[in-house]
Structures are given as C-alpha cells and as structure tokens.
C-alpha cells in the first residue's frame, strides 16, 4: 500500500501555491484569446515557394494597414497562420489581401482556411463559453450534492475548481491560445475530474460504512489504494488516446488535446490530493454517512 496520506499536507501546500499563482497569472497576465473570443481575422496559408516565409509574409501584411498582425509557422515549413484584428470589420478584406499578395508572390500560395469573427459574435461566443463552463460546474455541484454528503461535495468541487483554474493558469503562463475548442476541453475536464473523484469517494463512503474504527486519515488512504489500479489504467488509456490526438491529429487539435492532457493529469492528482484531504480536514466519520442513511430510511 502506498502511503498517499503522508504527503497530504505537502501537496495541499503545493496546490494552494499553484492556485494562487494561476489566479495571479489570470488576473495580471490574462489569457491569450483567439479570434473566436476577441474578434478578428485568421488566415491559414500554404506556400509552394520558399520565398514565402514568416518575415516576408509579415512585411507584406504590415504594409496593408490591418492593425496588429501576427504571422506564425503552423505545423510544417510551408504552412503559416496569419491573424489580425480587422478593427473596422472591413467587408472585402480577404479579396484585398489576396490581390496584394498576388502582386508579390504570384500564384504560389493558397488560403487553406479563413475565419472572420465580428466583434458582436466574439462577445457572444465568450459569454456563452463562460455560461457553459459555469453551468457545467453548477450541474456537477447539484449532481454531487444529490449523491453525497456536503463534505464530499465540497471536496469534489474544490478539486474541480483546482483543475480548471490550474489548467487555465498553464494556458496563461505559456500564452497558449484560448478558442472554442478549449472551452470544449475544459468542459470535458470538468466531467473527467468529477468522474475520477466520484469513483474514489464512492469507495470512501463504502469503507466508512464498513469500518467504524478506522480514522478518516487512514481510510482515505485505503480507499485511494483500493481504487488505484483503476485510476492508473483509466488515466493511462485516456492519456494514450489524447497523446495520439496531440501528435497525429493535426495542428488544429493541438491546443484542444493539450488542454485535455493537462486536465487529465491535474484531475487525477486532485482526486487524490484535494478531494480526499477535504474529507480529512472536515473530520468526516462513520457518523457522517450513517446520519444520511438514517434520513433516507425515514424518508
């Protein structure tokens, strides 16, 4: 049996630090919102001429008076991603850019993807993204509240917030782009993290009923160990699937799969080291679950 409980305090401290640092990053550095949430134009361009590179493209685009332009390589050497604000939401901007690029590069390039999100739509998308995440957290809260005693609910929700905040903190730290698919990833993380926590909690509750003489500090450790091989196997297969997406699924899914990978890692960690420690700190005992059982009987 691994003594996970030996490190409860250490990892609680680490998690607190992680959450504080993440929150500071989110407040002061902020998130790198993509055009989905900030508005603007994105062009994915493939070149068939080595003359076309990041600097020559940047030169061209900077001459076009488009505001802040970012040009980046996208995957391999011939693919580029160009993003700009398109502040005035000009109508025929793509045609103008094409005409302008034709002059310098002829026909040696191709627009593979064009996305243009107006300011109104981006504000709505951001709003619905925030609503979606809040709603999912609220639903999880309600679900867990129905299923477990409040001490368990608190533990699960703290673990959930930890996972979401720290994952977003990592995105802020490395200025990774937040777009629509990241919202999908965060929601899936919420589901996954909850799932992981609930499986361990299920066992804790079962053991609480079974053993009256074991303290919760020991009991959580026993429960974690009993469910450990399931935790490892499920995390491992999920991570294997996600790594396959990350490395082979193409550039578009990179951010999405990275967020999910982070979420699965944090989610697994938090089910062990946050959710359970909350139970310990709240001194959950056999009484906690039995009281509820009695109530259920009365009803």
């Amino acid at each position: 049996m691994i003594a996970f409980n030996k490190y409860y305090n250490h990892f609680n401290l680490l998690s607190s630090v992680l959450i504080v640092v993440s929150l500071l990053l989110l407040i002061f550095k902020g998130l790198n919102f993509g055009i989905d949430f900030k508005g603007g134009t994105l062009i994915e361009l493939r070149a068939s001429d080595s003359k076309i590179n990041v600097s020559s493209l940047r030169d061209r685009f900077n001459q076009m008076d488009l505001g802040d332009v970012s040009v980046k390589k996208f995957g391999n050497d011939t693919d580029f991603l160009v993003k700009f604000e398109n502040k005035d939401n000009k109508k025929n901007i793509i045609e103008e850019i094409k005409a302008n690029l034709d002059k310098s590069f002829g026909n040696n390039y191709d627009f593979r993807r064009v996305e243009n999100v107006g300011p109104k739509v981006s504000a709505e998308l951001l709003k619905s993204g925030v609503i979606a995440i809040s709603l999912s957290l609220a639903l999880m809260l309600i679900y867990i509240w129905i299923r477990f005693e409040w001490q368990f609910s608190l533990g699960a929700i703290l673990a959930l917030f930890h996972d979401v905040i720290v994952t977003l903190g990592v995105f802020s730290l490395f200025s990774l782009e937040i777009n629509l698919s990241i919202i999908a990833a965060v929601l899936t993380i919420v589901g996954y993290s909850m799932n992981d926590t609930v499986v361990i909690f299920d066992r804790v509750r079962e053991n609480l009923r079974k053993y009256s003489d074991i303290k919760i500090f020991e009991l959580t450790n026993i429960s974690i160990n009993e469910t450990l091989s399931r935790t490892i196997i499920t995390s491992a297969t999920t991570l294997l699937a996600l790594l396959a997406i990350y490395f082979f699924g193409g550039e578009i899914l990179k951010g999405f799969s990275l967020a999910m990978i982070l979420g699965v890692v944090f989610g697994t960690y938090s089910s062990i080291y946050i959710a359970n420690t909350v139970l310990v700190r709240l001194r959950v005992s056999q009484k906690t679950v039995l009281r509820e059982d009695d109530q259920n009987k009365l009803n």
Partner: protein
Amino acid sequence: MLYFSKLRILFITLFSVLFILIASSNLFKFDDNFFDKKINLGLDLQGGSYLLLEIDNEPVIEQKLQNLTTTIRNYFKEKNIKINNIKIDNQHIFFNVTDNDKETVLDVFQDENSDLNPYYPRFKSHQLEIKDTGLNLKVNFSRQGLIKLKNSSQDQAIEIVRRRVDEVGTNEPNILKRGNNRILVELPGLDDPMRVKSLLGKTANLTFRFVTNDENDRFGVEKLKFENGLEEATVSKRIIISGENLLDAQPKMDTQANQTIVSFTLDRVGAKRFGKATSTGIGKQLAIVLDGKIISAPVVRDTIASGSGQISGGFTFQTATDLALLLRSGALPAPLEIIEERTVGPDLGQDSINAGMIALAIGFMLVIIFMFVKYKIFGLITNVTLIVNLFILLGVLTLFEATLTLPGIAGIILTVGMAVDANVLIFERIKEELKNETNNILAFDGGYTKSRTAILDANITTLLAAIILFFMGSGPVKGFAVTLGVGIFTTLFSVYFIARLFTSIYVSRNKNKEKLI
C-alpha cells in the same frame, strides 16, 4: 447473473451486427434505402463556408415609420383631426394635435380593436405604443410590433438568400434562421466563397428614376454618386419602376457597342409605367440606381413600350452575370452584414480527415496493446468490446446521419480511451472480490453489482458535460459533444451486454480456475 438466455444472446448479436452493417454503409453502397445512409462530414472536414448574416433592420423600421406618418395623417383627416408637426426622430414618430383632439387620438391608438393599431386581439399587445409627452405625442413600435417586423424581414431575407445561393449552384446549401435577425448559411464544397459573399452583401435595391435639376420636384430630390464614386447627379425621389417590376434579367453581349449588358423584361404594370415615362421623358436622363449608387444614366431617345430594356454600365461578363442574378432573385428587405465567416479549403479538410484517422488508429492501437499487456484474457475481452463499441458508435452516427467534425473525431478517440473505464472498474472489483471469495462465479457477480454505482456516476458526469456542450457549443464543437455523448451510451451497451457476455462465458468455463484475472 451469469446466465444469458439464448434470446438475449441473439438480441445482442443481431443488434451489434445491425450497427456494424449500418456503419459499413459509409464504405459501400447499399441498394436498400435503410442502409444507404452516410455520416455527414462537417464543413471543417469536407471544406466549405459557414456564414452568419445579420439583418440590419434599422432602414426597415425607418421606412415603415415613414409610411406610417402618411397613414396616420390620412386616417385622422377623415375624422377631421389635423395632425401637426409630424416628424420622425430616432425610431419615434412625434406629432401635435389640439388639446381637444388628444383624447380621441389616444383612444384610437389604445382601442383593443383599433384598425390603425392592430395585433391586440391576437397578441394582447398593440403594434404601436403611444405616449403623451406633454409637448407632443410620441408613437413607436411596441416590443411585439418589433418582433413581428423582424420576423417578417427575416422571412423575406431568408427567401432571397436562398434564391441567390441556389442561383450560384452550390450543392446542398444549408440555410437556417438564427434568432430573429440572423441567417446562417452553410455552403459545403464551395470553390469561390468570395463570390457568394459579395452576392449576399448586396441589398440589390434597383430603381429607375429621372435625373432632374428641379430642386422643387414634388417628390423631393437627392444627390447620388455614380458607381465609380467620382461623378454625382441629382435624382428625383419618384420611382418609375423598381426591381419588383422585373420578370427576368440576363447578361448579354451587345455586339453593336461591343460591351456586356444586362437585358431585362418587365411585368405588365412595369411595362406600362416604363412606356409612359419614356414617352413623356424623351430627352431626359433616366438614372438606373442600385443600392443608392447610379449604375448609368442613359438619355431616353424613344418610347419603350415593349416592356424590355437593357442596362449598360461598363460591365465585365462576370459583373453583368452577377447583377442579372441579383435582379432575378430580388431585393433584400434590409442590408445584410456577414458577422462571422469560417471557410475551409477542401484540401485542408482532407488533411484533417487523414490526420484524424491516423490519430484514431494509433490511439486505438495504443489502448488495445496496453489493455492486453495489463489484463491478458480480460484485456482481450475489453478490446473486442472496444472494437464493437467503435462500430456501434459509427453505426449510430450513421443511422442519425449525424455531422462528423474534426473535434468530433477527437471525441471518438477520447471515447476509446475512456470506454475501458467501465470494464476496468468491473474487473478490478472482481479481483478484489476474489480475495475473500473462492467461488469465481460469486466474485464475478459481486464485481458487476458493486461497481455499478461508480460506473453510473462516472458516465453521468461526462454526459452532463456533453449535454451542455451540445446546447452551448457551435459548429465543430457540437460535433464533439455528439460523439462524446453517443459514445457514453454505446460504451454502456457494449460493457453491460457484449463484454459481460464474453466474461460470463469465460468465467463459467473456468469456474474452478485458481487465478481468474
């Protein structure tokens, strides 16, 4: 329950085979209609354009209020009430009446069966609201009135958009209402999205009006620019004929002048008016105005009674074709703005499909190898279940002709990774039961019953996330929610029916084996 009845086994087998067949219809062509279904590829996979258009209703409201001022004036004239100082400001009509008439006017507007101010009997709310500000009376559209107005201009706009898109001839466009002032246009596999964009961006309001120097024209005048943006002309507000009078418009080559023109045919009313105007207006310039800009202003040389004519204006063949198309399909009730556009080229779509399939194959292989190494015979059972699960998932998506997107493929891969969870929970539980239980069959039973709540919890939490995503997400993300959500159900089916069947066969054949897992 170790025992599976023959009927149950038959049912499970038939069900699985059915979905595998449906899934394989994506690869083969079946003659039978039931099997001839395919998963739709999202725009991000097959290439195409997604356009979100917003209707700018302000001009419509202005126009309606303008018409309303005349209606109000005439209505009260019959009742011998004089309306003074009527004007429109910021979507409100203001006017004055004498204090004696005020009550009557207010009553007319607030009467439940008012013929000036309808809707009350149907919606319990009038079309217009009236308020006595003290200085004057203020009339504006009520909430209900605005909703009706927006809905009707959306209905008209969607019809025109559909006609224009159809004229361009893209395959299977998807045109849908969004809210009460937006239209969603999905154009799969379009070569030239810019052309559609420019066609949808034009209102195509065509009018024929005389150029005049008479500042005191009875209908009022306005200064309009020519298409080239350089010259200007003063044009009467009196409309001779408008786009509504056109029956047909076609691009033509005028061999005499060696230029491309648009020839048009007028309806009966239009032909009559056009004939009359051209007979009285010989020598005058007739301006052809499209969306507030003059295309050309030829001098009338002859009476045109035939009901057909032509527009010249330095067109190329392409611009003439597009103008003819716009005129044929009719004018939009209000200008449209493209507020969101996402276009994916077909080769990027194909690349995404390939990458998604490779990731799926590799992810699948990794999981299968891992499970086999870790669990041996039970791993094998899980793997067979996983394969059947994948086919059932594809089968369900095919049956409902769901739209598969790139994030949707990611959802399938993720399902593969997470689908083992339920089996693992069960097998781990059986292992634990075996520590205290020598009877393999009892341990097997215990494993299934005692893991049930955990499995249910795990899947409900994921399902909740998927449901929210489905309702809140847009386009590609929705595809992810669909595969993730459907994946949960197929996983539960395959775990509790297929995997359990195999496990029970294995356990009953090895009742007395020492080390079961």
